[in-house]
């Protein structure tokens, strides 16, 4: 993690203009513009619900990465804070609707955030006593504790059915009722922008910097007089706050919360998975992760019943070969582009991409046929996959799939060897250029 961070800082230092940091200003404007324009480009109602989900998942994944990427804390219980934030938010909404307590809908996510922070203060004290592996186990235990408690108190958590609400209550806020999905989207987008900016600002605060130091070298941090435990605790509370905001927004979006679904460890695992896939070493990685999470759970699950299997495989390969996630792949190529070397590689990329696609297609055919045999055996042995008709019990289909897969992966291996040679040569050239630049 160390080395990647130093490469980023050396890369970004080039684009820093004083007294105004123009590069940063441009990026944040583009982010805001993307949030505003997105629902105008994708107009279907499915796209709108997906965009809303992406909006609050960005907040949740970023808050998760405050622990994982910036603090080196691998938490298996993040859903506790999003989920409890959701529950407090939904109770606040229902109370406001009954009139016992007056709060406009726009502030409901803040209520969720405060709830998340409150529970982080409460539970985080025990959780953050340890770091590393023990931390991971304790978060898992506390996650299970809260998730099984949810079924014990149906009065508060609504039991199996959960709690429902209606987001249209009270007086409209400057004529906005938050009934239509588009208004909710813009509420989520506004929160998303503000929270992302706030969390980015956090990385620059003394606490954020010392948190990085705690991740990299806790002993030295102790030496210079900081209490690492307290640093982790504060970071945990702030992460809990933003997680709660995300949970509150999720409540407004869906108008229902169930304890079995929103608090369990599977949900926490999902946040972990996609934050990591997006890239935990860079600030913007989790944003990519959130987008991937929604795309995978909405589109991929429509496309194939085996999507969890594919997801597990992709995750495993990413951990093994690109532990920096998608963000690190992007940054590596940006570095090449900066030195004008990206053009040399495009044929290799094309070769790698196409051969990998062929191999994966073959493997996917086999997986789909197996799933078909397992789940839809009653519908006959034939299935259509990507336009081709496969016979799950026929020899030719299996032979074809195996043949395609083996050929694809064999060619991929050949391309990969060529690519690795080329890649290391280019890296050497870049190192050389940097050294020459320094010598001048």
């Amino acid at each position: 993690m160390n080395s990647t961070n130093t490469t980023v800082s050396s890369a970004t230092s080039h684009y820093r203009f004083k007294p105004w940091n123009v590069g940063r200003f441009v990026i944040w404007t583009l982010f805001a513009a993307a949030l505003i324009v997105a629902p105008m480009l994708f107009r279907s109602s499915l796209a709108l619900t997906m965009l809303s989900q992406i909006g609050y998942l960005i907040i949740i994944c970023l808050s998760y990465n405050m622990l994982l990427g910036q603090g080196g804390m691998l938490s298996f219980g993040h859903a506790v804070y999003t989920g409890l934030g959701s529950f407090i938010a939904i109770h606040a909404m229902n109370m406001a609707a009954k009139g016992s307590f007056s709060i406009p809908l726009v502030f409901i996510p803040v209520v969720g955030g405060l709830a998340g922070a409150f529970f982080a203060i409460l539970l985080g004290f025990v959780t953050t006593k340890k770091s590393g592996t023990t931390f991971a186990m304790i978060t898992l235990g506390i996650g299970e504790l809260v998730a099984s408690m949810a079924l014990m108190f149906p009065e508060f958590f609504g039991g199996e059915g959960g709690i429902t609400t209606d987001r249209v209550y009270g007086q409209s806020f400057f004529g906005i009722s938050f009934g239509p999905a588009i208004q909710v989207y813009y509420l989520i987008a506004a929160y998303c922008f503000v929270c992302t900016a706030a969390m980015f600002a956090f990385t620059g605060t003394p606490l954020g910097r010392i948190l990085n130091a705690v991740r990299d070298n806790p002993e030295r941090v102790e030496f210079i007089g900081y209490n690492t435990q307290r640093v982790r605790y504060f970071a945990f509370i702030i992460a809990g706050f933003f997680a709660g905001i995300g949970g509150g927004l999720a409540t407004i979006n869906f108008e229902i919360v169930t304890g079995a679904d929103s608090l369990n460890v599977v949900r926490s695992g999902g946040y972990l998975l996609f934050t990591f896939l997006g890239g935990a070493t860079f600030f913007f990685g989790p944003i990519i992760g959130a987008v991937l999470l929604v795309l995978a759970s909405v589109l991929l699950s429509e496309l194939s019943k085996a999507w969890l299997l594919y997801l597990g495989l992709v995750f495993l390969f990413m951990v093994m070969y690109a532990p920096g996630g998608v963000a690190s792949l992007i940054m590596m190529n940006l570095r090449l582009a900066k030195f004008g070397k990206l053009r040399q590689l495009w044929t290799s990329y094309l070769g790698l991409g196409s051969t990998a696609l062929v191999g994966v297609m073959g493997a996917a055919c086999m997986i789909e046929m197996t799933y078909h045999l397992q789940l839809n055996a009653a519908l006959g042995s034939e299935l259509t996959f990507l336009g081709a008709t496969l016979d799950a019990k026929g020899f030719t289909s299996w032979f074809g799939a195996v043949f395609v897969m083996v050929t694809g992966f064999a060619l991929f291996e050949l391309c990969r060897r060529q690519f690795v040679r080329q890649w290391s040569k280019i890296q050497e050239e870049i190192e050389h250029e940097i050294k020459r630049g320094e010598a001048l």
Partner: protein
Amino acid sequence: MNPEFFVISLLNGVSYGLLLFMLSSGLTLIFSMMGVLNFAHTSFYMLGAYFAFTISGVVGFWPALVLAPLVVFVLGAAFERYCLRRVHKFGHVPELLVTFGLSYLILEVVQLVWGRSTVPYGLPEQLQGPLFSLYGTQFPKSRSFVMLVAMLMLVSVWLLLTRTRIGLVIQAALKYPDMVEALGHNVPRVFMLVFGGGAALAGLAGVIGGNTYVTEPAMAGSVGSIIFVVVVVGGMGSLAGAFLASLLIGLVQTFAVALDYSLIHVFKAVGVAVTDQTFGYPLLKLTISQVAPILPYLFLVLILIFRPKGLLGTRED
């Protein structure tokens, strides 16, 4: 509390605790040697049960008792060799993540191969029926078989680690891997064997746990977090601690499930009447059996507050 209930619960609790120990001993072994917390450990347990189901359909239960753990051993060793070793250089978090990804994958593959519902993995004839009956309640043979296998395993692992040459190398590699390497032992191979061995222990637990309890895709998840509780409560990396903690948790859970008392009973005993208007009624009316699922986790939190290194742990990290 009548003696019949007490004795039967005690036996059930001990047999469940010993099963937990079989699971957590492999995890503890791997953790204390390699520093890797294997999140897929209970997946190996599940694989053990499913392999035993398939193998016992072909050659019978007793060969499966030996063969299924062997298959799991091979899989575990292969995973260590080709996946875990590769991410070792990236640090602890990717190591944890790769095992987490594996647990995801094994769950999907198991559902793909054996289906999503329970498989009919039954007890062999020799283990059916009661072993003895006490106060009119019968104690099944299968539970006592679990106890027997767990005790045999405990003794043999202990003998292997303390009385043999291999155990000596393993113990040394645990503390001074560089020195052991310099003496000419292949430490990576030792790690591979230990990982496979730990997985095989989980697989063995699966073979006997799968038919005593139930074999289904959810079985890994249901014990998954409990064994982490066992490892933390017992003390990270301490086999004796894991033994103590698993017995404790097995007993607590078994006794709690059968007790239908709540705080209302306590208040009644001291002469305070509780109605549903009393403050905190939802909390007061909870019976111990309803609270049973969270007791291990509560235990975990309490241990962390009052004795952070665990019952018998020595490390303070």
